[in-house]
């Protein structure tokens, strides 16, 4: 009797009054968005080395990652853990809590759809990094060994989920609050545009693999996509810690000097006399000299990421830009999809949007587009080269998307780093942790994709 009551007494005692056993759903959504932005934006060599792989940058002293060494710092582990553990699970927790948290049924529906769209964005990053991934069995604490799903199946499921969530969005009803929605400040109309722009991106990615599906996805999205830079899906960092861009953390706060422009990017900018140069980099003695990819580049003549623009704590990260949308539409026209306009119009819009975003004046932008090397009609190569080259220049500071587009369009051509540890990585190998902790599922996936190597192409990467 005494012991029974004492048992109950002990139970009450083990309830933590100072840690949340539940949390407001929007705080988990906001945190998921923030973590996603941080992981996509950071140039930290332990986490995100896409700017090195795509040769926007190269390393000044320690050149491992510029030479495709992904293993020493277990970079795939960090990327994988970040997406699942810091982003997806928080979105999932938000989705679990929204139905009890949000009383207005229309708002509830909008918040669930918005969270789902951000989740789809994250899943697309994972599937486009690794190929097959745990998807249907993932994020389940009762299943410690989730199996991997076929990349294409995951991808197509994402497309259909995206349709459902876009359709569920009701602009007449509220979404997340203005504070909690760190991308659009609660504007549901913008989320509809973002959903469609994401759909356009994902539809274009599979163009070489499944033209029919690609065309139908792109055509249904095209009328509803971004129409100006004002629509950009931006994560706005601020000037005070802890809300600063991780780029600033790596370039300034750390007190380190690790990154220099790679010759691949800077020579292209130089050749094209690109007006974005001074925004991207600080010249040394009036010259923009880059480092050879993978070689140390400590020379005093070598430029650095610009102090006034790039190395600023409030540099925004862009999940998806109007410029990217216009490049996709240009490509869609070239591929014969019915999206309206000409390839050149869309191309001009795309380039202009990028220049404008970085601060180039309208007159300089027009002059740039008038150069024969830039003008769509006269620029070198196929549409893939024209669009690929300019898209690459526009995707500066967005290494992951630059990598995806380079893998898909195969332009611009990248140099072989001086001390390359492997072939050009067209995917990340699975985390070492997966081999140890989820080994049966991992080995099944490794053989399903044709070997867990960096050179194994993803399903949509046909060329």
């Amino acid at each position, binding site marked *: 009797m005494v012991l029974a009551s004492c048992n109950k007494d002990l139970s009450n005692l083990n309830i933590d009054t100072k840690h949340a056993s539940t949390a407001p759903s929007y705080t988990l959504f906001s945190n998921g968005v923030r973590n996603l932005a941080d992981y996509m934006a950071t140039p930290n060599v332990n986490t995100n080395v896409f700017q090195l792989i795509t040769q926007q940058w190269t390393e000044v002293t320690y050149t491992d990652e510029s030479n495709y060494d992904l293993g020493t710092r277990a970079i795939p582990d960090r990327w*994988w853990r970040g997406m699942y553990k810091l982003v997806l699970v928080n979105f999932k927790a938000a989705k679990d809590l929204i139905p009890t948290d949000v009383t207005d049924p229309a708002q509830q529906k909008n918040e669930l759809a918005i969270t789902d769209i951000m989740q789809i964005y994250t899943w697309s990053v994972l599937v486009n990094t690794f190929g097959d991934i745990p998807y249907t069995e993932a994020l389940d604490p009762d299943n410690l060994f989730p199996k991997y799903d076929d990349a294409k199946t995951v991808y197509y499921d994402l497309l259909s989920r995206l349709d459902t969530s876009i359709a569920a969005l009701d602009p007449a009803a509220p979404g997340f609050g203005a*504070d909690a929605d760190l991308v659009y400040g609660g504007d549901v109309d913008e989320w509809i545009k973002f959903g469609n722009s994401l759909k356009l991106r994902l539809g274009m990615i599979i163009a070489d693999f499944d033209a029919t599906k690609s065309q139908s996805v792109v055509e249904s999205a095209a009328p509803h996509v971004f129409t100006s830079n004002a629509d950009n899906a931006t994560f706005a960092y601020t000037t005070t810690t802890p809300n600063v861009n991780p780029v600033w953390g790596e370039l300034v706060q750390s007190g380190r000097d690790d990154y220099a422009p790679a010759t691949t990017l800077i020579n292209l900018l130089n050749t094209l006399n690109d007006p974005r140069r001074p925004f991207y980099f600080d010249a040394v003695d009036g010259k923009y000299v880059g480092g050879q990819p993978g070689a140390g580049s400590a020379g005093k003549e070598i430029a650095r990421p610009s102090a006034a623009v790039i190395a600023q704590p409030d540099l925004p990260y862009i999940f998806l830009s109007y410029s990217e949308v216009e490049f996709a539409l240009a490509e869609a026209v070239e591929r014969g999809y019915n999206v309206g306009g000409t390839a050149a119009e869309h191309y001009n819009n795309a380039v202009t949007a990028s220049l404008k975003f970085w601060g180039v004046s309208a007159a300089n932008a027009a002059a740039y587009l008038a150069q024969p090397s830039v003008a769509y009609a006269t620029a070198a190569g196929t549409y893939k080269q024209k669009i690929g080259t300019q898209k690459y220049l526009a995707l500066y500071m967005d290494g992951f998307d630059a990598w995806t587009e380079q893998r898909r369009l195969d332009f611009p051509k990248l140099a072989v780093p001086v001390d390359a540890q492997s072939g050009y990585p067209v995917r990340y190998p699975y985390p070492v942790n997966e081999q140890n902790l989820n080994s049966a599922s991992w080995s099944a996936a490794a053989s399903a994709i044709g070997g867990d190597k960096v050179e194994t192409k993803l399903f949509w990467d046909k060329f």
Partner: protein
Amino acid sequence: MQKFLTFFILLMLTGVFAIAQNRVSGVVTDNTGAPIPSASIVIAGTQTGTTTDPDGNFTLSAKNGATLTISALGFQPQTIRVVEGRTNYSVQLESAVKTMDELIVTAGGIKTKRKEIGTATTVIRNEVLTAGKAVNTAAGLQGKVAGLQINATNGGVNSNFRIILRGQRSLTGNNQALLVLDNVIVPNAILGNLNPDDIQDIVVLNGAGAAALYGSQASNGALIVTTKKGKRGAPVIGLSHTITMEEVAFFPKIQKRFGSGGTAYGTDLNGNPFFNYIENQSYGAPFDGVKRPLGAPLEDGSQDSALYQYNDGHFKFWDKGITNQTDFSVSSGDENSTFYLSGQYADVTGTTPGDKFNRTSLRANGTRKIGQKVNITYSTGYTQNRYDITTQTGSMYGNMLNMPSNVDITKYKNWRTDKFANPIGYYNPWYLNPYFSADNWRQKNRNDYLVASVELRFTPIDGLDLVGRQGITTRNNSYKNTVGAFTYTEYSKHTDASSKADISASVSDGSSYNTQLLSDLFAQLNKKVNDFNINLIAGGQWTQNEAKNVSVSGNGLVVPDLFNVSNGVGTPGANESNYKSRQVGAYGDLRIGYKNYLFLHGTGRNDWVSILSPDNRSFFYPSVDLSFVASDAIPALSKSSTISYLKLRGGWSKVGNVNLGNSSDFGAYYLLPTFSSNANGFPYGSLPGYTVDNTLVSLDLGPEITKGYEVGFDLNLFKDRFTSNVTWYSTKTDNQTVNTSISSSTGFTSLRTNVGQTSSRGLEVTAHVTPLRSADWNVSVGGNYTYLDNKVNFITADLPRLALATYGSGVGSFASAGEVFPVIMGFDYQRDPQGHVIVDALTGLPTKSDTISILGNATPKHRLSLDAFVTYKNFSFSILFEYRGDYQVYNNMGPEMDWSGTGYRTAVYNRQRFVFPNSVIEDPANSGKYITNTDVTIKNGNGNNGFWSDGINRDVTSNYVTSGDFWKLREVSLAYDLPSTFLNKSKFIKGLRLSLQGRNLFMWMAKDNYYTDPEYSDASNDNNGVGLTGLNQPPPSRFYGATISFKF
């Protein structure tokens, strides 16, 4: 009344006969000089005698040549002969000669005769504990008890000690012995905050069996500390002062031939690299004694310089520390009560310049008898300690070991006034002047401890005691960490590869409390039935722990010297945590003695703990032990003149350890997955961000269960001239609580669950022999030996090893199935099947192994202590050596020193190309086979990016795994008691002792250990991942000092 009359008549008669006799007087004391009241003095062959008064004085009349027998409870009787002409006799009684009848405080505060105990127990008395005058009680126990390993895990003004009995049991949980102070369980931190002079004795219960009565905290054995309670008799006032010097006793071995520079600056015609005046790596030209510039020229054009020759300045950087320790105590008592009051003030400066520590302790203890049936005991201790230290010891030490050895760092002390010492002009563009670091990064830390307990013992009828106890332990802490601002000149930021960057001021402030309440209520029944003596105890215990921490921090302070959080820019950091847990126990203890030589003892305890789920929170811990005093039971032995005491003993027990959380959160609230509020990057403006926690906790989580047995014997020979204890034990601990990593695609990164098993077995031997015992001499030598076989049997099939403490590179201390617990794992060279290092046939370079492997075991297999106690007249001398052997340590400062080129290893081949020792190359004619390498030399035996500083040498962990073996001269003390004839002149001084003592005076380490004290642990003090040392522990020290103590 009748007895009194008889006694009175006897006294009268003595008086009558005394007319023809000598009047004899004297004083009876124990071996510490304390008077023994109520000792009886009887003239042999008569019934005539007297007893001592409260001061131990006696007077009686006896004939010349008569023999007086002096005896007292708890002391060995002694006889003296009355000599003509001598009227004053001082008699010192040896205490507790009948060791087997000595009462020992065991688990639950129950006093038991030594011979009744069936498990290994060691009693350390105050004199032994304080022989070396260690400020920290744990230091005073080092090397004194078989089976007890005490490591000073870092240096500093108040070192941390890790106290482990019989090896480690829990993979990730607490393995430190339970601490019990005056019968109340207290947190381990209390031991370092007790005044050692207040301690009467410490009973070490080596095994879980002995401690099983303490329930779920007993699996690690226990230290039962009893403080002094005062003695009946005239007040004894003690006053003493100790001054102790501390100096660095061991420095890492460095090369002394090459200075700043390297091949990156070019080479001369002989291929020798050039000197460079800012280079931090010592891969430059050989020392030549010429004066060379140091650092870039300052803005005013001046330039620092140094002789280009070896200088031991970076070792002289460390100060001589001084400890002043003043003690006083008063102890007294009468028929009904005793009391003990004491105070101590210890003031410590350490070897790290500017580090200070002080500790003040007060104690009031006592006993009181109320009527015939009620006894009250109380014990109150209050201690406050204050730290004023730098937080940069590790980085300062590292910077100095990196520094070219021609630089005399002691020149840079006055950084405020000396332009070359000021950070702006300091020669090194990458590293700060350590004197500046020490001044600029400060921590002030205040701790206040109150530990008090009250015990009420009610004896309504003979043989029945009802006992209630209430204990409270509380710690209040507050701290402030400050970083001062420093602004460099633009010139200094941009000269010669400078990485000098402004330092912004910051402050962090925190406070916390931690309170433990413990109530204990039990009944003790003692009954004699024919040949059986039955002692039964039944009781209950209630324990509650509560803690709260609040901290705030501010960055970028606007007014640089105003260290106030509100003076910062941006949102101040803020944190709060609260924890509460409770445990309820019910226990019983039955001891049955047969004819006073066979004792069967069993305990049972059930615990209910709040931190586990209702289905798993109740568990039962039984133990049983048997003691057989053969020397009493077997007539042949009891008559033996050789064997004076032989006890055989054995025991079995099962105890549990709830391994959740740590000493600051008690494991509270771990079962519920929660959301954390301060997600990285939040608050975003006023928007909070929450995140799902990383760890899943299995709801079935239960305690780790340790089952084991021990057997042993105590054997004394030649009237106890030889004493010994031998114990063999073996335990297995199942249900290890382990955080296993899980695929993060589950949304979590780890799962806390019960899995795995460890085992520990070993031998503990203590033996002492007294070859000489006479009126003037008493010599005792002996020691203790411990053999320990501590293993991880298995973890799980998919988790063959578990990282306990690792560095960024993934090397460190691991639990690995089937191996010693723990092992050091890291990278080795690629080797051929015979173990030769494979080198490249062209470059001569070895390569690093792809995966980490076991490079050593971190637990000493053998430990040995040797001691000697010698007293001659008024001199007493003691000495203690300790040895630990058959284990390895990984020295993380090694790679750092090799990087910088100061490491001793880097110059063993004179910075020339060399053939890698014991290496092979692939046989060109027979691929996959290897042939001995006799002539392929390493291509880059020198240089800033040469073999020694590059990844191969530094990343091969095995290069820095060395033997951990050592011998230490732990303690030496020499004391002199001024003769009483001399003191008597003063009328009021009863004792005056002068002593000299030293601790850790000498250390003899394995030849390959160039680095530091293998006792250190780079993992935190509570971490089981021992075997790693690094830069965060200042170089090891020796202590020596002198004490003067008075008794009034």
